[in-house]
Each structure stands twice: as structure tokens, then as C-alpha cells.
């Protein structure tokens, strides 16, 4: 048997190997078209979904940008107010300690971002910071209270017998009230942080400057005003202000006490630590609020 015989046999026999029927061309073409339509529809719907997500993402990004812009504007406004109202009389030790906390105050100090002598800064009413010392009565400096609020001292008969008055009730008015209250509170918390930092620096030496206690008295008044304000609806903020009121009261009473202050200082330190006051203040204070242009 030769190779040629075998090859001819193969070519004859192999014709029957998996012999195909007639081609079902129309049926296959119909399925090809359907499959291609389905794929293109899938691609189109995928594209539409992707476009929807892109638009949503773009909208979110735009909102974030607007929010950041508003934040910058508000921050600039607050910074200018704080420059006008900075407490020049803060003890040097406090400034050093604040600079060591790594807060924005320290950044401003280190970078010299607020140039000029601190006595040169003039507030809106033309008074220099020294003339507007933070140790002046706080009620005089905070001339703006939420519109419509009577700012009556807490626990007075007036405040206990009457509900806290509200503004006109319009949404726009409420928003303005809330914004004004939030700005004032942030500013106040920044000042309290500065005071408490100053106090802690002083108390470590066992001696507290009388200016600190006087300053604490001023801030105590403002704290109570904020507590009584109709804008103080946030329970966390109310609790923080309540704790601050207690601590500030203790510091204020240091000046009146004639006996040993060591126990009192320990008690205040304990209050600060146990209520985690400093951390909560920093958490509630927007970056830059209460920053003082120190060290110039």
C-alpha cells in the first residue's frame, strides 16, 4: 500500500468527517443582527449611565467649590474682625504656648502672615486694639447679637418667665440669625481657647496673672449671653458653653479668693481635663477663629 493510496483514501473518506448540513444563513444572520443591536444598546446605555454619573460628579464638585469659596470669604471676614479685636494684653507665656500648639495662630506667627505692629491695627470704629482691650467688659465689645434676641441674662426672672424671643420668623431672617450666631460663637470660642491656654501656662507656675481672671470674667459674661441666645439650639454646643461657664467661673473666682490657690488651680485643671474642654473647643472652632496676631 503506497502513500498515494492512503492519501486518496483519506480524501475520499474524510469528506464524510463531520459533514455539514446546508448553511442556515438567514437564521444566523437574524441572530447576528440581534446580537449586534443588543451590544450597541448595551454600550449606549452604559454610556448614558456614565454620562449621568459624570454630570452628578460635576455637580457635586461644583457645589464643593462653591462651598469652599464661601468658606474662604467667611474666613476672610472673620480674620479681619479678629485682627481688629485681638487681645493685646495676653501674657507672653500664653503666646508662646499657643505658638507651640501648632494652631493657625502659630502658623500666622511663624510665617509673619499678618504684618505690622499689632498696635497699628485699627478696627472698624477707629479704635486700636489697645484701646479695645479684650479685658474690657465683653458686653461692650460684642455689640452684635442675633437680631431679635433680647440677650437677657440667664436665670433672671425675665428669661425664665418668657420664652426666648425669636426674630420675624422668615427663613431668610433665621438664616441670618444662625449665621451671625455661629460667627459670634466661633469668635468667642477662639478667645476662650486663647484664655485657657494662657491660664494653663500661668497655672503651671502656680501663679495666675490677675489679668487672666479679669479676662475670664469678661468671657464668662459672653458665654452666658451665648447660652441665653435663641440661636443656641445645638445641644453639643450648649453643653460645651455650659462647661466653659463652669470653668470660667472657677477662674474668675480665683481673683476673689484670699486663701491658698493651689487646690483651686488643681480643681480647674481637673475640670479642664475631665470635660476635655480644650479638645472640644478646637473641634467646635473653625480653623482661624480666635487666631491672634501675636509675636510681632
Amino acid at each position, binding site marked *: 500500500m503506497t502513500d498515494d*493510496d492512503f*492519501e486518496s*483514501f483519506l480524501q475520499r473518506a*474524510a469528506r*464524510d468527517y*463531520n459533514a455539514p448540513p446546508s*448553511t*442556515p444563513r438567514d437564521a*444566523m444572520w437574524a441572530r447576528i443582527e440581534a*446580537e449586534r443591536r443588543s451590544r450597541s444598546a448595551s454600550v449606549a446605555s452604559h454610556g448614558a449611565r456614565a454620562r449621568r454619573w459624570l454630570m452628578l460628579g460635576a455637580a457635586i464638585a461644583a457645589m464643593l467649590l462653591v462651598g469652599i469659596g464661601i468658606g474662604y470669604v467667611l474666613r476672610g471676614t472673620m480674620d479681619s474682625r479678629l485682627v481688629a479685636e485681638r487681645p493685646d494684653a495676653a501674657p507672653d507665656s500664653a503666646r508662646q504656648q499657643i505658638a507651640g500648639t501648632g494652631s493657625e495662630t502659630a502658623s500666622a506667627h511663624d510665617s509673619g502672615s499678618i504684618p505690622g505692629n499689632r498696635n497699628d491695627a485699627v478696627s472698624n470704629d477707629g479704635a486700636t486694639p489697645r484701646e479695645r482691650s479684650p479685658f474690657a467688659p465683653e458686653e461692650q465689645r460684642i455689640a452684635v447679637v442675633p437680631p431679635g434676641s433680647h440677650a437677657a441674662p440667664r436665670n433672671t426672672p425675665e428669661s425664665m418667665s418668657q420664652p426666648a424671643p425669636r426674630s420675624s420668623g422668615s427663613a431668610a431672617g433665621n438664616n441670618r440669625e444662625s449665621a451671625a450666631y455661629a460667627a459670634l460663637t466661633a469668635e468667642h470660642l477662639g478667645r476662650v481657647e486663647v484664655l485657657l491656654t494662657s491660664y494653663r501656662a500661668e497655672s503651671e507656675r502656680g501663679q495666675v496673672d490677675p489679668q487672666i481672671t479679669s479676662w475670664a470674667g469678661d468671657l464668662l459674661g459672653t458665654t452666658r449671653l451665648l447660652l441665653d441666645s435663641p440661636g443656641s439650639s445645638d445641644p453639643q454646643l450648649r453643653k460645651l458653653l455650659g462647661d466653659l461657664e463652669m470653668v470660667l467661673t472657677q477662674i474668675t473666682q480665683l481673683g476673689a479668693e484670699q486663701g491658698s490657690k493651689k487646690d483651686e488651680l488643681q480643681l480647674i485643671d481637673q475640670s479642664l481635663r475631665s470635660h476635655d474642654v480644650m479638645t472640644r473647643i478646637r473641634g467646635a472652632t473653625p480653623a482661624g477663629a480666635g487666631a491672634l496676631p501675636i509675636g510681632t
Partner: protein
Amino acid sequence: MPWEHRGPVDESQLLTRARAGDPAAERALYDAHVDRVYRLAYRLAGSDDLAQDFTQDTFIRAFERLKDFRGDSSFATWLHSIAVSVSLNGLRKVKRLRTREADLNDAGDHEWSVRRAEPDLKLRLAQAIDALPPGYRTVFVMHDVEGFTHEEIAGALGLQPGTSKAQLSRARAKLRTALADFAGEWTA
């Protein structure tokens, strides 16, 4: 007259129109080549369902990639290369599935087992072709069964024509060995 016999000018015009998304041109290209693609797929798969699946997939891919076809080879060669690739990949998947099913069922009524039980020469030949390594089997089916030239096979499989010839020779040798018992019947 089928499109494949109308000359390269007609086909290039069809390709241009098909690239532009002309459905009539796509259908004309399909009509011109579907028989050969389906026959090749059926020869390799041995099943009408699989052959139809492979043929459809071949044309879907070809139309999707038509913009990538640069005309270095003929459209038929390019299409057959897709068909062989689709068929061999599909058969690998089918083989894996059948192996799993055979492991699960452990049954002796498999089609291939039936073939083994038959003493008929043509069935033994079919069994021997099935048992060829995929490369040898493809070349054998394309050349000896479907009548492709070595140049066409080389173009479709990405081989040199000499390699195609060598693989065909080895395939035939293996088949001759497998059918040694029927040596007397070859000339019958």
C-alpha cells in the same frame, strides 16, 4: 453570482461601505463568505449548534473589527483566521465542560465512546481525526477535508506554508498509524 467570485474590486467597495456602517454591504459580505465559514466551523466542531455559534461569533467580531482590517491579506483569509480562532477557543471550552460532565456522570454512553465501539472504518477515521493534536487536526481538516490551499491555511493560522505542509504530513502519518488495522480496506 456569489460575491466572492465578483473580484477584489467589488469586495473592496463592499468593505468600504461596510466600514461606513452600510447594512446592505455587511449582509453582502456575509452572504459571500458564510458558507465556507460555517462549513469549516462545522467540520471542526462536529455539531450544528456549535457551528452556528462559532459562525455568528466570527461575523460579529469581523464587523466589529472591520476598521482594523488593513487589506494586507484577502478578506477571506482574515475572516477564516477569526473563524479558526473562535472555533478552537470555543472547542477548548466545550472540551473542558465535557470533561467535567464526564467526571460527574461517569457514564459510558458518551458519543466518543460509541464511536470507539464501532468497528467501521469511517468511524475509526473520525475517531482518529478527533484524537489528532489541535494544530494537526486543523490543518488536516482545512486542507484534506475543506480544500484550503497551504497558502490559505498559512494565512489563516499565521504559519509559514511549509509549516502547514509539515503539519499535514504528520497528521496523515498519525492517521495511518491509527488505521493500521484497516490497511486492507483502504483500496476497497
